[in-house]
């Protein structure tokens, strides 16, 4: 048995459980809420779901180029490392709330880290 991280976390069900908790956290976090404060909350929630699926090591077909293109407008608005750290922090807090074991949370954070330069357009 060598389950992927995504399987160990609980797959789709885990993403569904986490996405609203996570979205509430980032919307309530003054450091980053402006970046998430979309008029179309449904679309924004779907984006968060896609992000969590990726961060959990699940199926996704986003390339580094997609990440750059998808965040370029936010980088133009000043998205920086501190914001990136705040998002990862909120994600870790979400997983803690769901009683995910610490080593898995570390794996998720490490996965997020691999996207940092693309997201921030470095």
């Amino acid at each position, binding site marked *: 048995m060598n389950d992927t991280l995504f399987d160990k976390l609980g797959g789709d069900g885990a993403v569904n459980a986490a996405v609203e908790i996570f979205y509430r956290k980032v919307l309530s976090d003054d450091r980053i809420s402006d970046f998430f404060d979309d008029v*179309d909350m449904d679309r924004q929630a779907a984006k968060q779901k896609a992000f969590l699926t990726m961060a959990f090591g699940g199926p996704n*077909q986003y390339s580094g180029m997609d990440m750059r293109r998808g965040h370029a407008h936010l980088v133009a608005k000043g998205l920086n490392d501190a914001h990136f750290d705040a998002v990862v922090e909120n994600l870790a807090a979400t997983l803690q709330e769901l009683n995910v074991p610490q080593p898995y949370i570390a794996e998720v954070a490490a996965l997020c880290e691999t996207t940092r330069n693309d997201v921030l357009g470095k």
Partner: protein
Amino acid sequence: MPNLTFNGDTYACAENQSVLDALTGNGVSIPSSCRNGICQTCLMRSVSGTPPLDSQNGLKETLKAQNYFLACSCHPLEDMEVSLPDAGSARIQATVHSIESLNHEIICVGLHCENPLEYRAGQFINLFKDATLGRSYSLASVPAHDQHLKLHIRKVPDGRVSGWAHHNLKPGDVVEISQAVGNCFYVPGHPEQPILLIGTGSGLAPLYGIARDALEQGHTGPIRLYHGSRNPQGLYLVNELCALADCHDNFSYTPCISGDAMPADGYAQGRALDVALADIGKLTGWRVFLCGNPEMVKTAKKKAFLTGAAMKDIYADAFTLAAA
């Protein structure tokens, strides 16, 4: 091998091939992003043929009820005719049946369609003044209940369509309308779930339809309607709504006044959203419908979500005030 029809052309869909792959493989351009049934970019609608359950994962109940599906995760089992979400703009002729004044700035226009329009209470139609100029209005009528379509039209300063409706339209006139669209309506199932409806101004129209539709369909959970206006003159259907509350134990109506005018008995002072949240507290488990002023809707959506309502349970049709 099932066939797919899109924009009048038919394509074969191979076994295990998704609708998205079958169409894009034939050079048809369909928006997509994650290709994993998550981002909902490739949302399409089945005009005929039932979309497989898997292809509706994560969609709102109102979208499922209208046969929307995600093209990337749809592996058809039968022939399907599909369209992109914005299609279906065919126009229909309707005859003005009645025009009544609801308050100093809102009229109720009753429309009769030769062939009954298929719609759900709370959806909206576009009403056209001429070939190119139209505006969206929510349906306040309930299909099972009302013989005619009912629109609440507020006179917008310099509004070209609302001005025409207020000053020129008369019973007997023939007008063009669109099909009914929108995702803000009642879906049966979970009859015990509490429902909160918040509206300002003529945003009452869809909520008046949705509340009566839910009651009609046997909803047993509480249904709480808050209608807000700056002053008492801005409210309307007050007697009808009070009567509805008298007939149904699970329905309550709270008219809210946000301005300084001292409300009479039975009115709550404050903005409808604030009054509702103060009354109810946490919205975990609630189904929420919001309509009216775009700023109110945006704030209410966020507050409803942050106080516990699930995204899937928050329904609002984004109403933007078109430039006159």
